[in-house]
């Protein structure tokens, strides 16, 4: 168990190292730097730009900058964001929890709903319930998250005004509100972005879970369970689900990177001030330390989440028989 | 009678969690020209691994295998290809051992093509002759394996092995998956082929009852080792090892 844990940790570190290095190297080839774009206007004298470059180390050779940057990274320093005029760590510290909230809520809701749908579909295999959910979940996977988000924003938000279309909180002096009102306000703003993301998760989970369940339902031990006189729901929930859920959890781990990608777009669409929005702003401003930090953290998030799901899958799924 | 195949201290190991598992543990055996040596043991006793190691289908860890005096384990390139012509195999599951995407004619012809044994037309004629020899019809060449019954598929697998005109056949549980009646027919076919072509068989089985009628000698394997090797009648009359006794006792005694 410890050996596996160490292996996973090493793997996560390897992923992050590869990502960090490649992003850094690629940025070296990129045209322009913050001082070409961030300090806009022709009236900024070249000497000011040069001074800025010197202050932030942009005049150093790439190798040394990389060494400095990784050194700082190892010490936990992410650098200074020129576009936000704040430490990168602070910017990230604000944004990351919001992204975690968005992705976490979507993941939990989506997973629970997906498994539930799949159970109903399995119980009523080939009947109308199965077909109905089959069509719905197909729609859910066929429509990319950001398209769902756009449609939801158009109708639920802009047309019918049921939910706010942007931001994380209502205007006003939020600090003065009672706690529960702030929470309700947050959830109200969370509804559309998290809902759009959860829909995508639920559809994917439901389709995979249904396929896995139906596969397991053909196994001999399901026949044994039925031969005991167990009811069909009992057979499905007690015997089929534990054998079918492991692969789905593992698969969810594999799908997480794309979920993070979807979350980035959704944040942009709904103006949810998380890591995705931060990344887009940073890209526009060519704010390298922030870009690096955002990409690295998003990757880290995906890797951590994947490691966790794999561990969970391993836990849920005790050793299977290995005999020939 | 001289030995066609001499196995000395052969060891086959598989990597497993935390080290190696010895599937075959220092086995020494001779297979004589023209005989049928039965190799019998429970599942996991290493008999299949032994059969595959002889044919170089799995690597041997140590020991030696001599085929007609040649060191099989050292063969490479053309010499190995030539050895493959002379020693062939028929597997247990005729469904798994035939490529489902190839028609029967192509299956049987593959060996002829690989070793360039005949021109295209001659090869077709040979395939037809082979199919007839194993009790199928020449017209079956265009059909696919799934259109045949288990026994017929096993006949196809035998025809494929015979196509390269081998001297030695490893029959790896070749009749175990077949029903009693079909098994009997395939065994009869194997006997006839042996007589007609002077073949030598290594007949692998998990059940003593199957080998009684066709084996010259029987070797009993247990946990990777050969624990007993004796002429068939002697082994059935006076089994020396515990493994052989247990296998004999397991043959159902039908109250005729």
């Amino acid at each position, binding site marked *: 168990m410890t050996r596996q844990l160490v292996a996973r940790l090493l793997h996560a570190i390897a*992923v992050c190292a*590869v990502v960090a290095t490649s*992003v850094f190297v*690629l*940025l070296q*080839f990129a*045209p322009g730097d913050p001082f070409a774009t961030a300090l806009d206007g022709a009236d900024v004298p070249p000497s000011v730009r040069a001074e800025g470059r010197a202050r932030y180390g942009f005049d150093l050779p790439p190798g040394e900058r990389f060494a400095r940057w990784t050194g700082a990274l190892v010490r936990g320093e992410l650098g200074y964001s020129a576009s936000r005029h704040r430490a990168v760590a602070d910017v990230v510290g604000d944004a990351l929890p919001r992204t975690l909230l968005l992705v976490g809520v979507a993941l939990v809701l989506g997973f629970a709903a997906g498994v539930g749908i799949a159970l109903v579909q399995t119980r009523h295999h080939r009947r109308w319930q199965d077909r109905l959910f089959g069509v719905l979940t*197909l*729609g859910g*996977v*066929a*429509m*990319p998250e*950001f*398209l769902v988000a*756009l*449609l939801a*924003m*158009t109708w639920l938000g*802009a*047309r019918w005004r049921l939910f706010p279309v942007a931001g994380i909180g209502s205007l006003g002096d939020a600090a003065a509100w009672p706690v529960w009102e702030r929470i309700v306000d947050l959830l109200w703003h969370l509804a559309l972005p998290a809902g759009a993301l959860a829909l995508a998760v639920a559809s994917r989970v439901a389709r995979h879970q249904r396929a896995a369940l139906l596969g397991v339902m*053909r196994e001999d031990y399901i026949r044994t369970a039925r031969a005991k006189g167990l009811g069909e729901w009992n057979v499905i929930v007690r015997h089929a689900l534990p054998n079918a859920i492991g692969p789905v959890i593992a698969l969810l781990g594999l799908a997480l*990177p794309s979920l*993070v*990608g979807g979350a*980035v*777009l959704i944040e942009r669409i709904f103006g949810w001030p998380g890591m995705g929005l931060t*990344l*887009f702003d940073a*890209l*526009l401003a060519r704010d390298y330390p922030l*870009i690096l930090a955002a*990409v690295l953290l*998003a*990757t880290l998030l*995906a890797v951590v989440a*994947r490691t966790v799901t794999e561990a969970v899958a391993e836990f849920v799924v005790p050793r299977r028989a290995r005999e020939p | 009678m001289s030995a066609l195949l001499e196995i000395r201290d052969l060891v086959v190991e598989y990597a497993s969690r935390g080290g190696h598992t010895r599937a075959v543990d220092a086995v020494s055996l001779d297979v004589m020209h023209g005989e049928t040596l039965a190799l019998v043991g429970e599942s996991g006793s290493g008999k299949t691994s032994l059969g*595959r190691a002889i*044919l170089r*289908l799995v690597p041997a860890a140590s020991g030696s295998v001599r085929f007609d005096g040649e060191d099989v384990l050292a063969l490479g390139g053309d010499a190995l*290809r030539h050895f*493959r*012509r002379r020693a*062939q*195999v028929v*597997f247990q*599951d005729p469904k*798994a*051992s*035939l*490529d*489902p*995407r190839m028609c029967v004619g192509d299956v049987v012809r*593959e*060996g002829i093509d*690989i*070793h360039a044994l005949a021109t295209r037309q001659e090869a077709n004629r040979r395939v037809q002759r082979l199919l007839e020899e194993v009790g199928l019809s020449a017209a079956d060449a265009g059909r*696919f394996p*799934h259109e045949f019954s288990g026994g017929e598929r096993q006949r196809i697998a035998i025809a*494929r092995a015979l196509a390269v005109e081998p001297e030695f056949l490893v029959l790896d549980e070749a009749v175990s998956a077949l029903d009693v009646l079909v098994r009997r027919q395939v065994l009869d076919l194997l006997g006839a082929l042996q007589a007609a072509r002077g073949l030598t068989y290594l007949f692998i089985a998990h059940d003593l009852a199957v080998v009684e009628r066709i084996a010259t000698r029987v070797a009993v394997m247990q946990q990777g080792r050969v624990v007993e090797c004796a002429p068939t009648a002697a082994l059935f009359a006076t089994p020396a090892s515990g493994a052989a006794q247990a296998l004999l006792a397991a043959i159902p005694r039908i109250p005729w």
Partner: protein
Amino acid sequence: MAANAWRQLLDDRGARAAIGVLGAAVLAAAFAPWIAPYDPTLQPDPVALRLVAPSWQHPFGTDPFSRDVLSRVLHGARVSLGVATGAMLLSVTLGAALGALAAVVGGWVDGVVSGLVDVLIAMPRLLIVIALVATFGTLSPWWLIALIGGSGWLTTARIVRAEFRDHLQREYVLAARALGASRWRIIWHHLLPAVAPQLAVAAALALAAVIPLEAALSFVGLGIQPPLPSWGNILLDGTDYLTSAWWLVVFPVAAVSLTVGSALVLADRLRVAIAGEEHGP
């Protein structure tokens, strides 16, 4: 028996519908210049014909620049599906080659390929592509194909490697080896035909992954650049008019969803057909 999988696929109503939709999309893309009622970049009257709702003249309405949306969606199919198909072919070919190499050669080659897959698959693809495009500035469609395709070979490589390894263990491959067949012969005559249906599944899945990727990139302004239309940038034009001009969102969304959904259905049904063949008589 492989023929069975294809036949079973064509027997399936869902699969036929999916093939029909994809075929129609490809035809529409191929013949867009002849089908489309207008020039997709023509701006006849940016004042009078701005944001006209769907009508007989403009079945999908017009956009903020008075361009005909139907014509843009049709021409967009050319670009979107072209990029998607190119990227799909690239990623499937690359994945099949690397997966096969890893399985057949084994040893350190397998270690390198599997390790690479393990590391890369943990990365958010969209994010990396966005970051790359953003740093390099906008890319030509060819570079987009290279970038999207080059980042998508992982799944195919995994599938092909696993299938090859499985089939290498099977008795029919052992029998071929016992006959003296060379590696190449086994790969060409036995393994590739065996994994062909799986490759088709991988291709359909790759297509389903790549279409939204291109749409997403264009939607955030980093993919196909105007005035060249793509499904993603038609959406982008529509985001500012969500409440007033629904047709700018609905038609490109429908186009993306229908093609992606069809590709997914196709992959699904193909998988069922393969499974049925493995379990069947």
